[in-house]
């Protein structure tokens, strides 16, 4: 791009571009983006009426943007009233903005009501609906909730610190394996030996009720001392069988 300024018979000015532009051409993209420290104030009545008239016309998009921009203060004002509900102000403003957009979409100027009045009802309704929906899940906490972040950006999650005793899982697995071995060994016993073990240790009883040696002896019609001797022999044999299966 060259800049030439010339006033006839007065002067001529020509700015030569830098080598980069000459060699490589292309557009230099300019990115100035700024904002204001405060939100813009509400529109004057007359201006607002004019902008509202643009709704539904070819200037509809522009009208919506202007109305949203100049009613953001209203959203913040209403959102701050619900600050004590435990929900962050920014979240409330986000919800309130949705209410504002809905208000602008459904606003009817023929109803002789100011947009701010109508919008404030919509914004408040939207926030209240959100609070009602969220009150049910308020006490819930996500297991993936980050509790802290270290300098490298690694997060400490709730699931990292929740836990059980170390051997909880292993204990159940071990018990299951031992039970299998025991029943396999039991099947090696004779009928009477199996019956004595089942009665003595409540294996057949639905509540696992164990019988004393005396009760077993009475049931089988033999003496209690014989049951005691048999029991010792059975335990020894079971031990040998279980060691073999391990």
């Amino acid at each position, binding site marked *: 791009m060259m800049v030439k300024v010339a006033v006839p018979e007065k002067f001529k000015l020509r700015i030569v571009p830098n080598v980069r532009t000459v060699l490589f051409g292309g557009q230099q993209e300019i990115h100035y*983006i700024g904002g204001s420290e405060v939100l813009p104030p509400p529109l004057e009545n007359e201006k607002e009426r004019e902008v509202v008239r643009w709704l539904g016309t070819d200037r509809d998009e522009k009208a919506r943007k202007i109305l949203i921009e100049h009613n953001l203060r209203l959203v913040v004002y209403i959102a701050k009233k619900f600050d004590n509900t435990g929900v962050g102000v920014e979240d409330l403003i986000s919800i309130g903005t949705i209410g504002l957009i809905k208000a602008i979409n459904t606003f009817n100027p023929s109803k002789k009501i100011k947009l701010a009045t109508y919008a404030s009802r919509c914004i408040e309704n939207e926030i209240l609906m959100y609070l009602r929906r969220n009150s049910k899940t308020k006490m819930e906490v996500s297991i993936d909730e980050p509790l802290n972040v270290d300098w490298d950006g690694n997060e400490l999650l709730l699931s990292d610190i929740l836990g059980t005793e170390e051997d909880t899982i292993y204990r159940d697995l071990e018990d299951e394996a031992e039970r299998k071995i025991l029943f396999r060994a039991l099947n090696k016993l004779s009928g009477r030996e199996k019956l004595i073990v089942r009665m003595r240790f409540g294996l057949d009883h639905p509540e696992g009720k164990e019988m004393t040696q005396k009760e077993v002896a009475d049931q089988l019609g033999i003496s209690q001392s014989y049951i005691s001797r048999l029991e010792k022999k059975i335990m020894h044999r079971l031990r040998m069988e279980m060691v073999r299966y391990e």
Partner: protein
Amino acid sequence: MFRPYLHYISLFYGIAVLSSQGGILMAWKFLKVLKIEQERCCEVILFTEADSYKVHALRDTGNCLTDPLSGEGVHVLDCNFYHQVMKEAMEFRYIPYRSVHGSGIMKIFRIRKMCVEINEKEWIESPLIGVSESPISGEEDYQLILNCKVQML
């Protein structure tokens, strides 16, 4: 034998010398421009609740957009990238902005964190991201314009 052609040879030789000089100059300028471009851009990873996205970011101090509510700087994300790649529903709000293209309102939202790699990795918690109304790079060289406050870190 070559006398009749000496004229042309010397002419050819002169052109060759001049064009090689010009070629070297062009190559030098090209490398300088590449270096400038490298310094202008950096890699940024954006982390949302659902996913993470790696983008090229422009380190342009021209972006001084600030959120009037929190006073924090806003990084501007390309609208095409947001709509076509991110596609996540975010809780957004609007803030007014001004640029060389005009003024208006910009949709902004918070993400979980972002990692900016300039000389070393810089982590920023809960940054504000604004969605541009039109594409920010004509040639899609970058998808994010960092806020000037980041470059002061």
